[in-house]
């Protein structure tokens, strides 16, 4: 009777040992799995960010050919129609149309005193902000010509400007 009890608890010990080993093994493999998962997820996030940045760079290159801003009166590959951009500003239907968090057209030369362009101070103004969800440090910019109709002179006038675009953060 005594023998039986002893050997019974030995068996239980073995089962417990096995259970602990199995649990330890499972935890070990889960940790390894999580480690690989975090590495692959971070590389996935990086490549998604790279693609997004590439898209923004391409967008910067083709911003002057977007019909909503393009200067179509003469052949000019790097000109923006500021009159059209002013008319476009505030069009509610375009919310979410471009995947940007920030889109601004800035006058580089000559600098005016007006600040942000409105219907009251245009064209004596410096910036036209079309999208301003958040300012992201890695925004991209390109120099362009900002063209408009000049009524007093009766001709089209172009000034030096730049476009600043930032993509949505991932």
């Amino acid at each position: 009777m005594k023998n039986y009890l002893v050997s019974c608890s030995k068996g239980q010990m073995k089962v417990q040992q096995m259970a602990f080993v199995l649990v330890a093994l499972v935890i070990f493999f889960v940790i390894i799995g999580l480690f690989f998962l975090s590495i692959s997820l971070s590389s996935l996030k990086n490549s998604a960010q790279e693609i997004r940045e590439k898209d923004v760079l391409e967008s910067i290159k083709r911003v002057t050919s977007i019909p909503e801003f393009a200067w179509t009166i003469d052949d000019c590959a790097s000109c923006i129609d500021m009159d059209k951009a002013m008319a476009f500003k505030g069009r509610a239907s375009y919310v979410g149309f471009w995947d940007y968090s920030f889109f601004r057209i800035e006058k580089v030369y000559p600098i005016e005193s007006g600040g942000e362009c409105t219907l009251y101070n245009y064209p004596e103004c410096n910036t036209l902000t079309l999208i301003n969800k958040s300012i992201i440090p890695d925004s991209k910019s390109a120099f362009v010509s900002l063209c408009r109709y000049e009524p007093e002179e009766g001709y089209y006038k172009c000034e030096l400007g730049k476009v600043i675009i930032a993509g949505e953060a991932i």
Partner: protein
Amino acid sequence: MTSNRLININKKGLEFTFAWLFAIIAGAVIIFIAIYATTQFIGTSKDASNAKITGEVGSILESVETSLEEGKQIKIEFPDETRIYNRCDDFGNFGRQLLSVSVRSGIGNEFQRSENEQAFFDKYIFSEELVQGKEVNIFVKPFEMPYKIASLAYIYSENYCFVNPSGDIEDEIRGLNLKNVNISESVGGCARESIKVCFESAGCDVNVNLEEQSVTKNRIKVFYEGDSLMYGAIFAEPEIYLCQVTRLMKRTGELAHVYSLKAEFLEGKGCTTGLDNKMKIYASNLANVESDKDDIKAIGIESTEIRRSNEKLSCKLF
């Protein structure tokens, strides 16, 4: 003695059975979890890889639109047989172009369709719903009505044979040097496997009626206005073509509003264009276009009138 022996036998049996039972159950659970996790991981990896390639195709399209504005073609080569799924959604202010790519893999489902479709509001892709191949051809043409609205991208992987196209179309195809598009004087001169496109006669896979400005494909007749849309009707599935035309009409309407505002703006500067009202009427007519009817012809006539009025202006709208 007998009692001792019995106890011994029972003791061994109890130890063996319980340990094995536990090991089998625990082992089965672990193996099941391992297999489940592995299949899930492979599926997710495939999905991620497909999503990455979709993003890259989107980037290529972006750069193609920039560099091939005037209408040229490029070829995309994939590492393995690839499917491009083109889906069009005309809901909302501009509708959406949905794109996903699936590369063939040797494990499980050969072509696992990515659940993460990439959506574009400013892209218009004319192709079959599924384009498959190790290499695909893309060419781009601007669409104007009467002002520039968008760049249209045409994607195809199969061989096309254009039978008796008009002189202009033939010149353009030769000028673009379109890969896998041949020109023939008769249907008999086309390669057997190619998709035949007839311009002056019927009986081909795709029949173009230049007088009526219509294209019949898969027994569905669609109407077009201008060469850009004609190519769209030839290369795209009729349902995709109609959806893209609806989206293009929506964008044209929104641009008409922008030009109408610009006309008012110029009027404030002292330059009367007289086009602000015309643009508003044009925008409201565009909102009522039904792409499956020949409404697009009437829009074409209206756009020509607007173009003529604009050309006469000293301060042009576009």
